[in-house]
């Protein structure tokens, strides 16, 4: 008979060991899945987890890691504050889209003027756009007690429609011969989010993500705001007693996560994506939720988890093209990762005991 016994203290060892264990379990079960699909499991796992870093084409894939990882980390950092405080912003995808639209609109409004001020203005507009989009569910929760999970999620679909209308209407490239999509911002030097070092994948979004990690780390470990966020998540009543204003905390956490998601959208649209198009969003906002939890809502953990997630994206693409693995199998494996993480999470707070006989 297996029994779970609550630990007096969360285990420090397992706090760090569970993500690793989850990755290993994912590799094992993913391998079994790939074997069942008729692929060599070892080769597939190697292709997904190692080839992007060490294969002969790694020079091409490594910058891709930064490009894919940066938005994930940036969004996940923002989400982690809300998640720690028990505020569930599920709609980062929508905030990412609106941030991209607002930032791109500011850039396009200046076209073709060249000025150093344009890119900073776009950054501000992107952050504000994402923030306002996230404040909507926050405000509705504070004022009317609506569920922020539902409202933020539904606003993703509103944002997708908005994106389509922008790509087809307001922001469409006047010189684009009627094709949907805006002007390409990467061809407009003042508005382009260019690589800081050519060929490295290091663009301003990567810098922003690293800065966000550092700020989040300091805020959570040293600042009263981070302390109140953690307190509110663990014991809402104790937080109120300690003087935390729950309404303000909801608005701040929603606004913060929205702003970072908006920034991620702006850096994407001005850099790797280049333009506002109908299929501009590729699900970073949703994947970032997995990244946030995979990183245990800890800034450094999120940095590593973002890297790992980007790895499976790129490795997955390689596996698709080289080994003919279906996309669904790769998505299944990404899902497994979160599933195993949540499952082994129980080890942090509980001890597994084998008991003989029936329980008392």
């Amino acid at each position, binding site marked *: 008979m297996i029994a779970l016994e609550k630990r*007096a*203290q*969360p285990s420090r060892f397992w706090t760090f060991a569970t993500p690793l264990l989850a990755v290993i379990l994912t590799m094992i079960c993913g391998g079994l899945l790939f074997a069942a699909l008729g692929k060599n499991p070892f080769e597939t796992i190697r292709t997904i987890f190692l080839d992007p870093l060490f294969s002969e084409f790694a020079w091409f894939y490594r910058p891709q890691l930064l490009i894919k990882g940066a938005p994930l980390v940036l969004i996940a950092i923002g989400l982690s504050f809300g998640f720690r405080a028990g505020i569930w912003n599920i709609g980062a995808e929508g905030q990412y889209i609106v941030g991209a639209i607002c930032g791109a609109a500011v850039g396009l409004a200046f076209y073709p003027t060249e000025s150093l001020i344009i890119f900073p203005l776009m950054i501000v507009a992107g952050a504000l756009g994402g923030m306002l989009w996230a404040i909507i569910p926050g405000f509705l929760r504070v004022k009317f007690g609506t569920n922020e999970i539902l409202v933020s999620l539904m606003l993703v679909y509103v944002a997708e429609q908005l994106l389509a209308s922008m790509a087809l209407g307001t922001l469409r490239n006047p010189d684009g011969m009627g094709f949907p999509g805006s002007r390409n911002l990467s061809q407009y030097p003042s508005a382009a989010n260019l690589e800081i070092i050519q060929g490295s994948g290091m663009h301003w979004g990567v810098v922003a993500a690293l800065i966000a990690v550092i700020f989040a780390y300091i805020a959570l470990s*040293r*600042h*009263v*705001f981070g*302390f109140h966020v*953690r*307190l509110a998540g*663990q*014991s809402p*009543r*104790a*937080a*109120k*007693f*300690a*003087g935390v*204003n729950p309404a303000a905390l909801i608005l701040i956490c929603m606004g913060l996560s929205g702003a970072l998601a908006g920034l991620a959208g702006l850096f994407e649209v001005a850099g790797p994506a280049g333009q506002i198009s109908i299929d501009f969003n590729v699900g970073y906002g949703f994947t970032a939720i997995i990244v946030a939890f995979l990183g245990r809502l800890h800034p450094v953990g999120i940095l590593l988890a973002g890297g790992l997630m980007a790895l499976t994206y790129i490795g997955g693409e390689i596996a698709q093209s080289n080994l003919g693995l279906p996309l669904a199998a790769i998505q299944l494996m990404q899902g497994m990762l979160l599933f195993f993480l949540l499952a082994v999470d129980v080890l942090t707070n509980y001890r597994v005991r084998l008991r003989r006989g029936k329980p*008392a």
Partner: protein
Amino acid sequence: MNSPLLRLSGLTKAYPGVVANKDVSFDIARGEVHALLGENGAGKSTLVKTIYGLVKPDSGTMTLQGQPFQPPEPRAARAAGVAMVFQHFSLFDAMNVAENIALGMENPPPQREIAAQVRKVSDQYGLPLDPDRIVGELSAGERQRVEIIRCLLQDPKLLIMDEPTSVLTPQEVAILFETLRKLSSEGTAILYISHKLEEIRTLCDNATVLRLGEVVGECDPKTTSARDMAELMVGSKLHVPEKADKPAGDNVLTLQNLSAKAPHRFGTALKDITLEVRKGEVLGIGGVAGNGQDELVAALSGEIRVAPAMISYQGRAIGQMPPNARRKLGLLAAPEERMGHAAAPDMSLTENAVMTAMTRQRLTSRGFVHWGKARSFAEGVIKTFDVRTPGPANAARSLSGGNLQKFVIGREIMQAPDVLVVNQPTWGVDASAAAAIRQALLDLAAKGTAVIVISQDLDELMEISDRFAALNEGRLSAPRPAKGLTVEEIGLMLGGAHDMEVAHVDA
């Protein structure tokens, strides 16, 4: 009468890591009111559960009326004539009294018959109870009567009562004792579990004291002082808080018609509370739980905001101030619920210290927490209040209830408040720790702090209060000097004076 009704010999029960009962032996005679005394964790519950058939002993035997007695389940114990009234009632709110009683029977007779029996027993033993009333509308005392009558209908030879007076007003206690005396005079033995020593002294014929699972003494409570019994329970000399007489100080906190809506569905609204608290006094506020205690603490701590003029502190209207602004002024509070309200269970003691002490102890600068300073403050609390823990890095939930209580109260006291509000400061705390907490509160008052103690333990309030007031359905009685208050007067204050049932029995 020579052979005892129930004889326990050598009962031992061990759980993993702890021996709950170790070689426990004593006798209960017919018609005897026998007290079982001991601190939390002394093994009282395990022992009565053994007698009631809920726990199987590892070794040892019991004999009931000379016959071997080893009930495999409560049903067998009831059939043998053992009945038990639990501390927590098991009644359905939506059903009436007779229906609730029928539910506990093996082969219930028709409702009308039960109702008639209930009326008969309730008359016979002076326990006023209408069998047709819905349980949800009954007071705690009346609910307890339902449980007692349920037991009496089985015509028990031994009635076990677990902490029966913790929810009762003094008048209700008087009614209960009258009933128990009558039962005992008819030959029913009563095993009475309590830690209220004065009650045991008035009611019981014999007392067995348990400490750490072992019988450490037997005594005649009528001739043994409460202090001696307490020392037997604790196993060491008990420090009795000392209160110095002092003149009344200046007025520091004023409540003027303080009213607040109930914060949630099961809360109590505060109605027109008017009160003046003076420097250096201990104001005791009594009342049965759920009469507005939590809400009053919340209104004072700042968790519930009210109109500014309803609360004034040294002449300043502060009814709308948030908690930390009040702390800065010197008004501190410690709520009743330790886990999740006064402390965050999963956070370390250092973090829990930061929770309320950050403003007054200057544990932050420009929003950044000085963890080193916070740690030494937490260490100070742990040392001064003898909190048993390996260190401030441990999570609050790893502490026992009493130790966490010492930490939570100590955290506020160490901040040198001008006004301190505490709710149930010694709830679930063992006798020596409780005495230490009370002494610390008295010492604080001696230094000029106004201390408001909200408690359901009247003995505690009478021991430390200068003035006493009672909360009843969100209203506060006018405070009166605690010295010289009689139990009857306190009972009338607690019951709100208008809807008491005292006349049924000549107590």
